[in-house]
């Protein structure tokens, strides 16, 4: 939404996919409130954010990568590694702040490594981040094969602490962190050189380089951003689960990619908005809530509905942006 205000000069057609996502969100939510009593309450909306705050953060990072035309398959695994490092470090008696810093540094470092390999050795992002995914998951099990619970009081306070909003709606601190990440991402993408270069690389990498933009920095940078977001998302996830485990977030990367695509970002790069990705996460969250409200439906329907939504949005993208190869 904020992107609308920030770049008023762009063609309104560019916003069509994002707006379509919001419309779908409103429709799915409308269906829910129509069918079930108590669905259209502020708390259900708030819970969409509470339950998906980590997904929002991951989707923000993924948006950066996809905007350059790359892809990051490692996000789920890096998030799992973050929960594991956080849990293990706290278990070993590290101060919480140090543990958090260690987690963020690991995630960003992994992102940096992957970015360097992708850029300097010309290996496809798909393969490099796939290897990163294996590496991160493997490292989890190297730390511990079992699930490690988090007992640190400050972590627990942060996890269980709630913020009361008017109308009896409560939020968690994770939501605030996630929203701060979204705002920061919007700022970086639309008001900094780095952000402009990211869009330019997605449009055409060689043109961007010929224009003298710092493509290397941006190309490696997006994987660092994604690594950082994965680590932060992992921390939020560890607040949500209060444990570290190597099998946390299996397949999460697919949910994240689905959210970004549903949010109207083109996988070819160069076009898309963070706000769209947030909307994409909200759509996925609503679908999940709907299915749990229904009660009789098997939770596997979530997967199927996500698949169908993905398809619908890709078809829409094809209609809207015919001019792209």
């Amino acid at each position: 939404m904020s992107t609308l205000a920030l770049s008023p000069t762009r063609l309104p057609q560019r916003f069509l996919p994002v707006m379509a996502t919001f419309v779908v969100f409103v429709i799915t939510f409308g269906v829910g409130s129509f069918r079930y009593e108590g669905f259209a309450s502020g708390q259900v909306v708030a819970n969409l954010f509470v339950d998906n705050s980590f997904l929002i953060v991951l989707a923000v990072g993924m948006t950066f990568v996809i905007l350059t035309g790359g892809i990051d398959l490692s996000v789920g695994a890096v998030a799992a590694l973050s929960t594991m490092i956080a849990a293990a470090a706290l278990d070993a008696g590290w101060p919480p702040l140090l543990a958090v810093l260690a987690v963020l540094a690991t995630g960003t470092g992994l992102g940096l490594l992957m970015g360097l390999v992708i850029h300097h050795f010309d290996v496809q992002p798909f393969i490099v981040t796939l290897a990163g995914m294996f590496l991160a998951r493997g490292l989890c099990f190297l730390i511990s094969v079992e699930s490690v619970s988090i007992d640190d009081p400050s972590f627990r306070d942060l996890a269980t602490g709630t913020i009361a909003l008017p109308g009896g709606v409560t939020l968690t601190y994770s939501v605030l962190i996630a929203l701060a990440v979204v705002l920061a991402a919007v700022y970086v993408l639309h008001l900094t050189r780095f952000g402009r270069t990211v869009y330019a690389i997605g449009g055409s990498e060689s043109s961007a380089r010929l224009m003298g933009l710092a493509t290397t920095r941006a190309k490696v940078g997006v994987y660092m951003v994604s690594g950082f977001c994965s680590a932060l998302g992992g921390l939020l996830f560890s607040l949500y689960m209060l444990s570290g485990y190597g099998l946390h977030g299996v397949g999460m990367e697919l949910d994240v990619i689905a959210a970004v695509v549903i949010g109207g970002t083109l996988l070819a790069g160069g076009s898309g908005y963070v706000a769209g990705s947030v909307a994409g996460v909200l759509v996925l969250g609503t679908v999940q809530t709907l299915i749990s409200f229904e009660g009789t439906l098997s939770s596997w329907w979530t997967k199927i509905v996500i698949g169908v939504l993905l398809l619908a949005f890709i078809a829409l993208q094809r209609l809207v942006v015919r001019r792209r190869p």
Partner: protein
Amino acid sequence: MMRSRLLWPLVALAALLVLNVAVTPSFLELRIQDGHLFGSTVDILRNGAPTVLIAVGMTLVVATRGIDLSVGAVAAIAGSIACTYIAGGGSAVTAVLLALSVCVLLGLWNGFLVSVLGIQPIIATLVLMTAGRGGAMLLTEGQIITVKSSLYREIGAGFLILPIAILISLAVLVAVALLTRRTALGMLIEAVGVNPMASRLAGVHSRTIIWTVYVFAALCAGVAGLMISSNVSAADANNAGLWIEMDAILAVVIGGTSLAGGRYSLAGTLLGALVIQTLTTTVYTIGVPANVTLVFKALVVIAVCLLQSPRTAQLLQKRRKSPRSTSRSPEVAAG
């Protein structure tokens, strides 16, 4: 060029085998018992059969500059359909045919999205990857369905001196190699991968070719799914073929087939799949926890990819200034 691309995977495989022999001296031993061949290497082949088969299908898809993420889900669906049908009192043959025809339909669907609607392959197949496993879970109602059919069991666990599974995979590999390399088909597939538009203008039915490779990949995935489920006489919709698409893609890439499309090597794919399977087995034999295999897998993949990267090749070429004659003729514009 292709020959030298096969060098590093070959070195990796040899190193793994040497490591295994060093740890377990009896590693390469083979013995015949009840007319079956037994030994660690045979186990590697048997466990690697589904990956080899899926990787063969994947190779052709990748050669057209595509990718198929849905193969794992398709494998799970094939196993689920076959087991559900047999558990309901059907015959094994009908079950297999039924499962494979559904796989062909799924392949047609993927091919339709990619070739007719022109959707990016990663996303087009992501749809089925996400929805497919959900569908398989619905089919089995979240249960692990066990079956008792000796005929069905043969596919994955049977022996004709060698395990039947690996014989199927190798037969498919050889058939594909003959079909694509002895006819113009292979060159047409590579042409589509280099430039679909140009090849269409040159009179190649690129749409039909793309469609065919996705159907073939789905069919391979289906057979692999039957192998996996028949090996344990059960369909586990949740775990069957989980991450096998990643293994298959890795096998293809390690084998020197570029994800940018336009050239492929079936021998390389076989080698790549063997490297991955041997690596997994090696880690088990050394006694590292099974889940840590992933770390080794990541390291090998990165090492092989870096060694194969054009940049590294350039650096190496500067060192030794002996221009080698490339013996292979149809070297199409490398990406």
